[in-house]
């Protein structure tokens, strides 16, 4: 997952979590404050009523003639009520509670403040109630405003965070793309620093450049070593070969000497192949081949099949070109590409028994081109295949006295040409699949 996405998700989750906690706790908090506020208001009302009684006298509420008839009043919407009665129970009351009252067949829940007080030598009880529906309605309104504000805040901060993260991570993305992802060989690396004012990105950029300098130095040293080793190894072989060839062409040489010379030539040939294969692998590893050619894979396959048709016929092997879609493999190397496919093909020819079949399927999709070479040979054992893939051991087929450089070269070349190789092998045969990327314009 990309760093910017992670940061955004983190921001969103952190804010979302805070919001969730707030939303969960908000009703209780709101209720607490609303009730507290209501209680205060009820107390204030009680004080107001007491003030009116002190000012205007009790007569305004309770008649002195019938003091047992108390005073009761509801406002028009039944949101509030006041009850004033003579209190003869002697017990002092000063409490707030919730009570349901049935008014015109409708139950209304009130927050009630009940308080006894002395007036004119008598004790009265005053109850002031306020409908909780009103409180709940206020709670709902405040709650909705809060939720709305928070959602808008979350959405706004999400977009701001996205834009800000994109902006500050821009140099980092450039470093990753231009200095790491798009670099297949050290030669492609550009030392031009990416513009940024973030200190950490500058450090990263410099660290990558330093690392690449060291890699390029090692590559150059290896290149020089390969060149020298190549010279030192090839020159004596060249001398040997020309001497043997010179002897070989002499007519006075007898059959026995000829036979010995042929053995020598075979040994020289093996040395040449080994040295060439080792140097080729080193050069591919060292990216010493150009990758600027366009290879017509379909033509290459046709040529290969034509080249080996007679040999296959002789071995009574059926060569089937099942599909050959036209495909131009760009930014490639023709001789390496040929070597890669040819090695797979020759491997199939080598191991397919008499009467067997080799199928070649070359197909294109929008994103890639696949070349599959299937044979009906005995297959390659998993152990040997792993060795070749790992590139640690040079496979040696002792039974047939053949070096295993072919598959090794095939793998190395494929890696260099950005071609994916897949080998599926069983006792019924082997299928080697090359997947070449298609460059999108």
């Amino acid at each position: 997952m990309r760093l910017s996405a992670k940061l955004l998700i983190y921001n969103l989750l952190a804010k979302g979590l805070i919001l969730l906690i707030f939303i969960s706790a908000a009703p209780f908090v709101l209720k607490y404050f609303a009730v507290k506020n209501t209680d205060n208001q009820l107390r204030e009302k009680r004080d107001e009523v007491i003030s009116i009684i002190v000012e205007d006298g009790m007569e305004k509420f309770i008649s002195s003639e019938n003091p047992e008839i108390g005073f009761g009043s509801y406002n028009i919407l039944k949101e509030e009520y006041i009850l004033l009665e003579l209190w003869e129970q002697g017990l002092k009351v000063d409490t707030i509670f919730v009570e349901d009252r049935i008014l015109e067949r409708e139950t209304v829940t009130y927050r009630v403040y009940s308080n006894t007080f002395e007036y004119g030598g008598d004790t009265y009880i005053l109850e002031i109630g306020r409908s909780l529906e009103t409180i709940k309605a206020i709670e709902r309104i405040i709650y909705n405003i809060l939720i709305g504000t928070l959602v808008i805040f979350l959405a706004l901060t999400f977009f701001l965070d996205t834009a800000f993260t994109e902006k500050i991570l821009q140099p980092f993305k450039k470093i990753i793309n231009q200095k790491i992802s798009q670099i297949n060989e050290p030669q492609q690396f550009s030392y031009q620093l990416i513009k940024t004012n973030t200190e950490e990105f500058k450090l990263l950029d410099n660290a990558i450049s330093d690392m690449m300098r060291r890699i390029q130095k090692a590559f150059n040293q290896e290149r020089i070593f390969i060149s020298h080793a190549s010279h030192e190894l090839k020159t004596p072989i060249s001398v040997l070969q020309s001497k043997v060839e010179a002897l070989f062409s002499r007519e006075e040489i007898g059959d026995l000497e000829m036979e010995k010379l042929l053995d020598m030539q075979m040994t020289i040939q093996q040395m040449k192949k080994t040295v060439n294969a080792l140097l080729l692998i080193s050069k591919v590893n060292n990216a010493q081949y150009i990758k600027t050619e366009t290879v017509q894979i379909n033509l290459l396959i046709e040529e290969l099949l034509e080249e080996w048709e007679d040999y296959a016929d002789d071995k009574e092997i059926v060569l089937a070109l099942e599909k050959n879609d036209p495909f131009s493999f760009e930014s490639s190397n023709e001789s390496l590409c040929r070597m890669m496919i040819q090695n797979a093909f020759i491997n199939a020819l080598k191991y397919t028994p008499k009467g067997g079949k080799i199928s070649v399927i070359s197909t294109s999709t929008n994103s890639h081109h696949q070349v599959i070479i299937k044979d009906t040979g005995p297959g390659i054992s998993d152990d040997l295949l792993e060795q070749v893939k790992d590139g640690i051991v040079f496979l040696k087929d002792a039974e047939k006295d053949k070096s295993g450089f072919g598959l090794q070269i095939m793998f190395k070349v494929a890696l260099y040409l950005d071609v994916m190789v897949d080998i599926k092998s069983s006792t019924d045969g082997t299928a080697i699949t090359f997947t070449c990327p298609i460059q999108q314009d």
Partner: protein
Amino acid sequence: MRVLLVEDENSLGKEIKKFLEGESFLCDWATSFAEASEDIAINPYDFILLDLGLPDGDGLDLMEEIQENQKESSIIILTARSEINDKVEGLERGADDYLSKPFSLLELKARMQAISRRKGGWNSNSLEIGNFHLDLNAKTIQFENQDIPLTAKEYKLLHFMSINKGRVLNRFQLAEHLWGDHLDDDHQSNYIDVHIKNIRKKLGEFAPTDWLQTVRGLGYKIQK
């Protein structure tokens, strides 16, 4: 034809010189940059076979002198160095061909003939083998003006054997000429037998091919 061989490796130079003289070339041999430079300034050459790794300089640096003094000569770079840039630079600076060591002397001869023919210096653009006529320009073979369909590899094989008439060519030499050194099969030379069989079969329909001989245990040769 006069050839300048620039090669510092003594035993290799000796063998190449001997081989070229055996093929009727007049061969001068320079073992150092300075010696080669002097020869280039004095004598006219048809061919310059140039080794790159010389003890007193890089063979590539001789290219300008060659271009200046030997406008008509053809250059083949012979080198054991493996850097691609050398090959590209050598060809860009005017070399006609590039042969990596170790190479077969017969391959060298084939390359020299190909360059000569390309530049029009070779006397003939055709070869006669038995009753067959090898057209070197069209890369075809005819019998009494009738084309015989050979594959590219079969033609290349027959042509290589034709320019080395009378010489026994073993399967390794023939295989190397056809596929180079990187073909992954130590038994690739067996494929040569299949090609020879097909050549005999295809040509045999028109005329006897007893001139194409199998030298038992060794290889093949075309009788002189």
